[in-house]
Each structure stands twice: as C-alpha cells, then as structure tokens.
C-alpha cells in the first residue's frame, strides 16, 4: 500500500505538499478533500470543529497518519531521500529552512489566511484595494525580502528548498481573492524570486497545482454560497477581529 495524501488544492499547504510529491515522483494516491463544501454541509469531526482547514493536508502511510504540512514535507523528503537542496543535510542550511518554516506560520500564512476569510465574509472585489488587511502583509513581505531572501536566488541559497515552496504557494493564495492582483507589484526582487521558484518547480506542475485558485469564476460561486457565510460567521468574526 502506498502513501495517501488528503488534499484540497484550494489550500496553500496542500499545494506545497502536492507540488513536492509530484516533482519528486513520489508515488501517492490523491484523496480529494473539499473543505469549503464540507463547511457548507456542516461536516465536521471534533478536530474540524476548531478549524476545519486543519484537516488538510493529511498523509496516511499504512497505519501512520500525519497532519501539518511542514511535518509532511520533511517526512516525505527524508523517507524518499529527495535531492539534498530541498532540505539540506548541512546543519546551517537546514537550520535556515527550519527557520523559515517556523517563521512562516504566524506571519505570511496568518496574514494571507485572514485576508482570504475576510474576502469570504465580504466578497466585494471592488473594495479589494482598500482592504486594511492587506497592510498586514506589508511587514512580513518586507521581512521576507530583507531577512530571508536578501540577494540570494532562493531563500536558502542557490537552489529551491522547502522554504521557497511553502512561501510561494502561500502567496499565490492571494490570487484567489482578486484576479490579476499582484501583491508583489512593488517588490521586483520578490517577483523575480517567485518566477525562479515557478521555473524550478516546472511551469506545468505549478499551473496544475494552482488551477483551482486560478479559476476564479468557479471559486466565486463557491464563496457566495449563503450557508457558507452563515457557518463561518462566528468563527470569522473572531479570526478577523
């Protein structure tokens, strides 16, 4: 029995796991999860009650199940002995990947997450550019550039690593909210980096992983589902307060 990956490509951590597995030819069974639909229908287990998005990604390897994308990514990289640059053996380089993966949670990820759910709440594309929530991203993006990227081609040196994958898939989430909106607009260094990451992954795979969020129309109708908004209301109010 091979590995099963429980994914909804609507979620950025799912995309990073998907891309990583595909890129490294790791055999797996794709188990489609539908986070938003589950929310609308009210499907949730005890774990889901707190934050249904935390159900994905999930890995199942025989009797072993694992949540949390950084754990899944490093587990896969070590189990399948993927090329060194993804999660280098060199202690200092590895520390840099760990450092990014740790920092990412409460900065880039949490800002993007908030923005996404604000959008679900309000769904007013025209008001996008005036969102104050966007400002939440400004500082993390600046730190991303000044502390993590600096003048290197990738976050941890000359080659793509797990850090780049996790960062870029998260930033792509913003596409979900406003088509054509480029949050990296005024940051050419980050734009170039983002392009390098896409190239290192392979354009086709990258596009494939992001198909769901790039197909805005379908998403739009999913997000306007009135039940969804009702379900999410109390949690949303807390999340974006």
């Amino acid at each position: 029995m091979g590995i099963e990956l429980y994914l909804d490509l609507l979620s950025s951590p799912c995309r990073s796991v998907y891309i990583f597995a595909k890129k490294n030819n790791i055999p797996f069974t794709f188990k489609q999860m539908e986070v938003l639909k589950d929310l609308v229908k009210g499907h949730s287990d005890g774990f889901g009650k707190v934050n249904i998005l935390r159900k994905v990604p999930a890995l199942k390897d025989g009797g072993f199940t694992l949540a949390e994308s950084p754990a899944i990514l490093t587990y896969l990289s070590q189990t399948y002995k993927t090329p060194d640059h993804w999660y280098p053996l060199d202690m200092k380089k590895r520390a840099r990947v760990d450092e990014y993966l740790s920092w990412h949670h409460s900065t880039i990820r949490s800002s993007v997450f908030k923005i996404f759910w604000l959008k679900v709440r309000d769904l007013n594309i025209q008001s996008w550019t005036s969102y104050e929530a966007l400002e939440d991203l400004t500082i993390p993006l600046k730190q991303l550039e000044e502390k993590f990227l600096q003048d290197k081609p990738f976050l941890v040196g000359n080659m793509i690593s797990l850090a780049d994958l996790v960062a870029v898939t998260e930033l792509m989430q913003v596409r979900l909210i406003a088509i054509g909106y480029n949050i990296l607009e005024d940051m050419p260094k980050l734009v170039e980096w983002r392009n390098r990451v896409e190239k290192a992954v392979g354009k086709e795979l990258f596009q494939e992983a992001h198909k769901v969020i790039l197909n805005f129309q379908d998403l739009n109708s999913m997000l306007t589902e009135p039940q969804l908004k009702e379900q999410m209301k109390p949690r949303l109010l807390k999340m974006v307060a």
Partner: protein
Amino acid sequence: MVVELFLDLRSQPCRALFIFAKKNNIPFEFKDVELLKGHHLSEEFGKVNVLKKVPALKDGAFTLAESIAILLYLSRKFNTPDHWYPSDLQKRARVDEYLSWQHTTIREKGSSLFPIKYVWEEAVEELNSALKQFEEKFLQDKPFIVGNEISLADLVAIVELMQPVGCGCDIFENRPKLVEWRSRVEEAVGKELFQQAHEIILNVKNMSTTQLPPELREHVKQFLKP
C-alpha cells in the same frame, strides 16, 4: 568560540531553549535581552536578529532566529540523546507535527497571557479550546507527546503552558491528565532546572501596563495581539 543564546526567560520559547541547552550540558553564553526594557529594539541586537525577537542564536558568524530552528540546530550540532528529536522518521514526524501545530494554537493563545494582565479572560477562553485539542490529539494516553520519553515537543509545550500560570491563571487546575504530564516533564528535565527556568515568570506579581515606560507600552500591546 562558544554559542551565544540571546534570551529573556519571560518568553516561553526562550525557556525551552534554556532548559534544553542546560539539560544537555551544551556550553553557551547567556545573553540577557530584557524585552520590557526594549533591549531587543537596539541596533546591536538587530545585527543578531533583524526580526528583533528573542530567542536568537549566534554561533561564530552564523546567526539564527526562531526557537524551533534553534532547538533543532542545537540537537544536531551537539548530538543530543535521540529521544529529544528521534531519528526514527515516524517518531520524528510526530515531533515536527506538534512543533508546527502549536504556533497558531497553544503558542498564539498562550502568548496573550504574557505576565501582564491584559485582557486575559478572553485569551483564557481561546486557550481552553487549544488545550482540549492538545489533550485529545497530541497527548492522548501516552506518558509524553511522542511516546515514552520526553522530546522537543513536550519541552516546547510545557513552557507555553507555564506562561498563564505565571499570571495567576492555573490552566492545570481541573486537568489531571495535564498535571500528570507536567510532573513527568518536570522530572525528566530535572526539578531544579525547571524551577530555575521558570523563576522569573513565577515571581511576577500583579504587573500591569502602567509599570512600563510609555514608549514600550504600545510595543508590548503589539505582541499581546492574538
């Protein structure tokens, strides 16, 4: 040249590092960075960690931020006993899973209870739900989070859970499973070291924002934001 650790023991991740380094006899120089005095905002500290946060590590020319990354780095560099960060990939994955999950749950909700009683009633409620998950998903009926021995996951968890205790909010009350786990962790770490690491927050009595210099008040409010 010895590793330098930039710490303020009022901060949970700093305590985890302190305990880990001491427990494993890792030689280091303790560089005191007093957050309440704004030391972390200095230009000098900015050279060690441009993110201006503690903890931070300096190993020769190599500087590192983020407690998780530092814990892992030290465990590798100093070859600490396997149980802290097991070489068995599935056990290791369990530690990683906890270390990842805790950022936006226990840590985030627990952080609002920095030893300054600042709207902590609400924060306590949010923490309760994270605690429930902690017990049900991570601890379950095991002696430690990842099996039979203490690991980085337990260390990172315990220092966070001690934080509210430091402000007079005993989250262990009415949670016998957590109490037992805490005793086991304390024993595994060593009571004396555990007390030493927690001395500073357990001695904070009724601090309020009015004791802070005005320029720091706003700054502290920033890190109390969930």
